[in-house]
């Protein structure tokens, strides 16, 4: 991704220049990250409707979960902090 897109995502991903399919993916990633218990079957169906197959949905879920793991390790152990 170029820097402009990264900054747009950081500022407000809902207005970032991404495709409708990417928007569905990002909505899911944000929801999973905030509170995975809020994710429901309709979210998975939404990903399918956007064009992701179940392998893709699994990959999105695992990458998002992996980065959540890394974020917590990094924050808790001071990686990148003082």
């Amino acid at each position, binding site marked *: 991704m170029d820097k402009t897109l990264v900054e747009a995502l950081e500022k407000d991903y809902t207005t970032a220049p991404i495709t409708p399919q990417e928007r569905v993916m990002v909505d899911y990633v944000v929801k999973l990250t905030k509170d995975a218990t809020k994710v429901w079957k309709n979210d998975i169906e939404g990903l399918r409707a956007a064009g992701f197959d179940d392998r893709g949905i699994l990959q999105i879920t695992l990458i998002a979960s992996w980065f959540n793991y890394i*974020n917590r390790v*990094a924050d808790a152990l001071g990686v990148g902090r003082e």
Partner: protein
Amino acid sequence: MRFLPSADKAWVVQTYYLEMPDAVVFFRNRNCESAEVGAKKTMTWIRTVPLTEADEKLRKAIEGEQSFYPKEYATPVHPDASGASSIVGSHTLIPEALYHAFSTFGALMSPDLPLSRRQHEMIATMVSVTNRCVY
């Protein structure tokens, strides 16, 4: 922890690649709390084992997980003296966990899977933004 001056309270964000011994991984440096905006910091708050001091078990764990990284992630950027990255380094006291954690990442970046690198990066960015994380 030090906080940004009030004039800079808005999140200050920098995107960069976090180097690994033989891989470059897209990470975001979201500088939430440090006054050293944009500075690259590599220290952790627990003891870590530098690559130069790694025993055979740790070396094999690091070499093993590296083997999972796709070629497009293979250009090192700013490698440190030991050749290891801080996030990998944070796992060095438990080599088995290091191996499985970073092998998983490498497997998930495989070009044989449905998502593109742009999508990988988008996911990583949004997780870190949502978590207000330094990574």
